[in-house]
């Protein structure tokens, strides 16, 4: 009886997704990464809501550079602020910047690249030449400019929102400040996504199911959205997962150059650039944020790589 059941089971076809899931489970690094990311997510987004975490912006100039003690589990920084609180709240900001900017860039790049790849021909050529040009622009000029232009408008927007919801003032101020960053990084980072999307669309366009849809007389929009894009989901997810750490790294670099998150808020980028200054004197301020930062980024990268290995249809032969 059992043998018969087993052979029946093994002859059932496996979908791409369940195949992928099985393969990921075999990839120990990817699994470990998922666990790490989940832990960090909880730490940064859930734990700060608990009362045990002090205010990350509350200074005490008499308590600077304290070593870990019962009041400050990771000690204090150069202004007497609790390091653990700054680490967790900072993580919120860094991860948010990474995720939101990725979303923005995926959104723009996906649409742009898909259209270019689908239409093809001269339009495609022109659209991709534009991408080439944008690739050559000095990233920093654009970031500074975007940040400046947008933050001037963000001020007005903050004022409006605060007058409508005065209880949420701190929350609003904190996150409106990030909008220029989201847009600047995301709007400048969509280029590679566009290329990836275009390549995908180009190869899918040639497949038989698309030809079938065309001969059925379906509208282009329907073909693109209902038939092509769902098949691109795999590479898009992979690419998005791999973009997040890149953008988190960009936020860190911008913070180092003084263009990132505004005082007195913290982000991992700020903690790292400030910590680097204390490398010889108070290394704890660098080591702890660095380990957290690197662990998160490594986890994101390994997860992305694992996803790519798992979703690669060519590897289905295993």
């Amino acid at each position, binding site marked *: 009886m059992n043998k018969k059941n087993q052979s029946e089971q093994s002859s059932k076809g496996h979908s791409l997704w369940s195949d992928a899931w099985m393969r990921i489970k075999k990839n120990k690094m990817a699994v470990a990464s998922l666990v790490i990311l989940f832990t960090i997510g909880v730490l940064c987004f859930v734990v700060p809501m608990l009362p045990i975490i002090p205010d990350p912006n509350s*200074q005490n*100039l008499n308590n600077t550079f304290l070593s870990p003690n019962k009041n400050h589990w990771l000690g204090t920084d150069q*202004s007497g602020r609790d390091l653990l609180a700054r680490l967790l709240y900072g993580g919120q900001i860094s991860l948010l910047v990474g995720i939101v900017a990725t979303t923005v860039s995926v959104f723009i790049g996906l649409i742009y690249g898909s259209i270019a790849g689908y239409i093809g021909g001269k339009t495609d050529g022109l659209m991709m030449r534009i991408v080439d040009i944008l690739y050559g622009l000095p990233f920093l000029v654009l970031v500074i400019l975007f940040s400046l232009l947008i933050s001037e408008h963000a001020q007005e927007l903050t004022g409006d929102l605060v007058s409508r919801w005065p209880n949420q003032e701190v929350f609003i*101020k904190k996150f409106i400040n990030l909008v220029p960053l989201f847009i600047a990084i995301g709007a400048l980072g969509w280029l590679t996504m566009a290329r990836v999307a275009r390549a995908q669309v180009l190869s899918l366009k040639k497949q038989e199911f698309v030809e079938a849809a065309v001969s059925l007389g379906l509208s282009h929009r329907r073909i693109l959205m209902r038939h092509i894009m769902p098949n691109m989901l795999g590479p898009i997810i992979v690419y998005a997962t791999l973009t997040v750490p890149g953008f988190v790294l960009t936020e860190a670099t911008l913070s180092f*150059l003084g*263009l990132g998150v505004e*005082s*007195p808020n913290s982000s991992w980028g700020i903690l790292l650039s400030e910590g680097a*200054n204390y490398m*010889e004197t108070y290394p704890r301020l660098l080591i702890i944020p660095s380990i957290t930062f690197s662990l998160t980024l490594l986890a994101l990268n390994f997860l992305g790589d694992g996803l790519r290995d798992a979703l690669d249809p060519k590897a289905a032969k295993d």
Partner: protein
Amino acid sequence: MSHAHLIYLLLAGCALSLVACKGDPPIDSYTSKKILVLGNSTEPQGLDPQIVTGVIESNIIRALFEGLCVEHPSKQGVHLPGAAEAWHSNDDFTEWTFQLRKNGQWSDGSPLTAQDFLFSYQRILHPEFGAEYASMLYYIQGAESYNKGATKDFSTVGVSAPDPYTLKIKLKASIPFLPDLTKHYTWYPIPKHIILKHGTIDQRNTPWTEPEHIVSNGPFVLKDWRLNDYIYAEKNPNYWDKDTVKLRGIRFLPISNQYTEARMFFNQQLHATYGLAPEMIEHASNNYQKYLRQETYLGTNFIRFNVTDSTLKDLKVRQALALSIDSKAIITHILKGGQSPAYGMVPPTDDYHTPKAVSFDPIRAKKLLQQAGYGGDKKLRVSLLSTDKEVSKRLSEAYQDMWKKHLGAEVSIEQREWKTYLARMSGLDYQLALGGWIGDYPDPTTFLDMWKTGDGNNRTGWSNKEYETLLAKAEQTKDPSARLRLLEQAETLFLSEMPIIPVYWYTTNYLLHTSVKGWHPLLLNNHPYKFVDLELTKH
């Protein structure tokens, strides 16, 4: 197999030699060659004394050129002969005569005469030339109108050369400190024959400062100028006092990152750093006391108010904000450089008694704010314009915290990069802004003139006719003591209206190698290199 073993052995040998080869510290070879290696913050704008405006440039120009008088290496306020061997003035310090030394020459051997000085003053004041710092010479009669193009004839300006080695200067005010002014690079002579070889008197940006063209009258001559890499100046064999000069040369390194600079110093690559980050000050103070220098530096750090702003129009509000700043805490915990809390604008000296206008008084501050109508539900909300420099960040965060703690005020920090910060401040597009001022010469007027109506450095919108009357009166007062009293009155008036919050008076903190001799604390940090020497010492 044996091949692999051999390779491993070779690699191991190389690695060992790398680690074992303990060479001498890099700085020792420079010391024994008597070449001074200095960290000099960033690449200079240029080396034309009449175009540049910064301290960085002045550090280099001071080695190449020499003014009428020279700073004494250790005694503040003593004027040593430079290009001039003697000088005197009339009773009310409005007319000065300088005797140039007859053996004064340029580094190419041409004689240095009073004509060179006339030419130099004409160039910096020339309306077409557009010298940024021309105002440093406005004390000279007729200088300002010539510079602004109101008069066309340079002979209306109060400088003349009755003979090739006499320079007469007529001032429009009583200036007892003119010798100090002549030590500033805007008053230095420049070589007329070289400048005219590469362009006209009002032409900027000619290649005359290039190492292959430049000619100067100071203890050193420019030898190498690799952009963003280093500047090397070598001893001038035609300098009139060359026997006093012990150094063979000076290397200036544009090290913009102060942590890199500190690392280079501790790795024995520099003789002196340009500055020192606060936590490095502490580190050095604990571990390398013999290298640390902490010296008074003529300057004030303050917070500007935009007095035209509706919220800040009220004097009580400004006073409340001023009295809630705990300068001592900031100095002890953030700056760590031995600075002094400032109670006024002008740094006090033995002769000048700065009015005590500001102190840390949170109780009175709170009362004042209540009197202004705030308290309970009505919170004071203002914004503070700050730059992206590390120390500015920490200062603004500390101020924000103090105002919250003592006044319940909600202050938002607008951190902008440098040029945006400048543009907004100049355009009065701010409410509060971080600010500072380094003195150009050791007289209170360098800190007081800037608050006159319409002065480009005012940037607060503050204007008071009585203040300007007092300053004008002081200008015409002969008696030095009476003059200072008048200036104190002016400052008292200024501070009573609180267009700024004085926070602290600067010190300069830096690391100096033990092999450097003849380098002493000076208020303006303008060490005359001709008196500096290098001696190999044990580390």
